């Protein structure tokens, strides 16, 4: 319950913070910290233009499932189920973009699919790695695991997970589907045909997702809560930093590198764990 109410607030603030830090890194002043909220409030007041009426419905389901995913996660449920729910949510977004039937949203949808394909293995491997150490898929059990923090046993998986965060946070090297930086090429990709309230929904879903993913980062340090929170925030800054350092990547490189990372870091880590067992 706390998550349902607090996550959009925290997520929104984090995004505001993100924009400010990014601006500072580019020696700009940046928008107010509450800017994401202003944006969403504004979008809610705008007219909602659609190509196909049902496209908004998919986005609504996307939001519902993202919230559901986060709810499952913070309720200490099964990590695999959480991943599946998250995937389902993302699928609805992609279908919505397909439904919108414009060339730009098609390309965006297909790129989003490629991105999903790129990060999915690593995310699943993360869950498997956590299971191998704690012997449970339950988030509750993993969070309550007493022993050395997971990150010491799963360094490869931790790094691999950070890599996928770059995609999930929709940062520039991997923001290939909604294109925060490439207006000319595919307009706004996935989100091109969404406006007003629907766009606001996507934004809010993003906030929820952000909090949930940082919660996952925290799991790596669950036995040291304060360190965990600190590192989660640090990771967030790190991702922003990477965003600002690297320019653009092609989608081919995205999937290749993500799979390579999953295969080397993720799989390597699991192999070592299973040999140690």
């Amino acid at each position, binding site marked *: 319950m706390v998550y349902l109410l607090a996550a959009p607030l925290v997520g929104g603030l984090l995004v505001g913070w993100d924009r400010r830090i990014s601006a500072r890194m580019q020696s700009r*002043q940046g928008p107010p910290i509450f800017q994401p909220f202003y944006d969403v409030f504004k979008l809610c007041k705008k007219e909602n233009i659609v190509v196909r009426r049902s496209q908004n419905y998919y986005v609504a389901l996307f939001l519902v499932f993202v919230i559901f995913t986060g709810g499952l996660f913070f309720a200490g449920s099964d990590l695999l189920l959480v991943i599946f729910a998250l995937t389902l949510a993302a699928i609805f977004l992609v279908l919505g973009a397909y439904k919108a039937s414009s060339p730009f949203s098609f390309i965006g949808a297909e790129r989003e699919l490629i991105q999903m394909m790129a990060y999915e293995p690593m995310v699943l491997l993360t869950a498997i790695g956590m299971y191998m150490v704690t012997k449970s898929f339950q988030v509750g059990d993993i969070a309550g695991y007493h022993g050395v923090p997971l990150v010491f046993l799963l360094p490869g998986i931790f790094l691999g997970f950070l890599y996928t965060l770059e995609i999930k946070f929709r940062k520039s090297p991997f923001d290939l589907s909604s294109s925060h930086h490439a207006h000319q090429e595919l307009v706004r990709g996935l989100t091109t045909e969404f406006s007003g309230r629907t766009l606001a929904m996507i934004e809010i879903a993003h906030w929820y997702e952000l909090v949930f993913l940082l919660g996952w980062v925290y799991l790596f340090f669950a036995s040291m809560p304060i360190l965990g929170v600190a590192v989660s925030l640090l990771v967030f800054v790190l991702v922003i930093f990477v965003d600002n350092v690297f320019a653009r990547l092609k989608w081919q490189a995205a999937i290749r590198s993500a799979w390579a990372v999953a295969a080397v870091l993720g799989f390597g880590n699991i192999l070592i764990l299973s040999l140690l067992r």
Partner: protein
Amino acid sequence: MFGLKQSPWVIHYDASSCNGCDIETLACLTPGFDVERLGVLNTGDPKHADIFLVTGAANEQSHAVIRNIYDQMPEPKVVVAIGACACTGGIFRECYNISGGVDTVIPVDVFVPGCAARPEAIIDGVVQALAALMDRRKAMKALGKNVDQVLYSRAESADAARILSLQKTAHQQEGTIYGEEHVPGLVQTLPALEVELTQRVFIKATVNGRLVGVARGYAQDRTGFISDVIVHPYFHRCGVGRRLLEELEKALPDMNRFEASIGDKCVESAAWLQRQGYELYKTDSWRPAIARVYFQKERK
């Protein structure tokens, strides 16, 4: 109005600019001016944008694009014409392919002069546009609540007084351009209107009993003549005029084509007519020093 004022997302289009104003517009986004401080984001997607920044005069090639982008922007939306060319056509004003400023194509809310316009002026224009944006939102809200109750029906002779008062309001702009004596809507008297009401087809739009718009026309030789379509300024750009025109066309059945004529200097009305599918087909002089332009549309 929380939110709307703090988060103007802009879309920038170069109609035929020499790039001077474009560079200045983009300069606003750079660290030196950093308009993101004000929440401004440059989005490439008209469906995400609130403010339409146009640079350059409107030439034949860019008419369709300007209209297209404008139509795709969700309400409330405002247009800022940046630079001398976008405001009036500038030095290209008399060119064969230039129709003039951007306001000859779409309604413009804020004009930012300059050649090229300075970034400070552009930022100021955007801030002024915010005020226009709020006005649009207010109008939308007022209409939004009542829009379902907009009734479109035949006007009767009892409406004459109210129609007269509406047309005096609506034709003000024309009056300032041509002089009041040259605008029929402004010089018409009540008895004349009452007579006209019996001869021509009148469609009125009312919100909660209040008259907000009128369209009138008549039939002759299988051609429907649209005399005028007027909407109270408060309800402009809400689709009332479009709907009135449609209803009027419906009320004139069996017509092969429709024709409408307006003063040559009423550029906004001309642009509006073109958005309704009317095409320009001739120009003549109606009174000394006053030219009229004629638009027509074939019935499909």
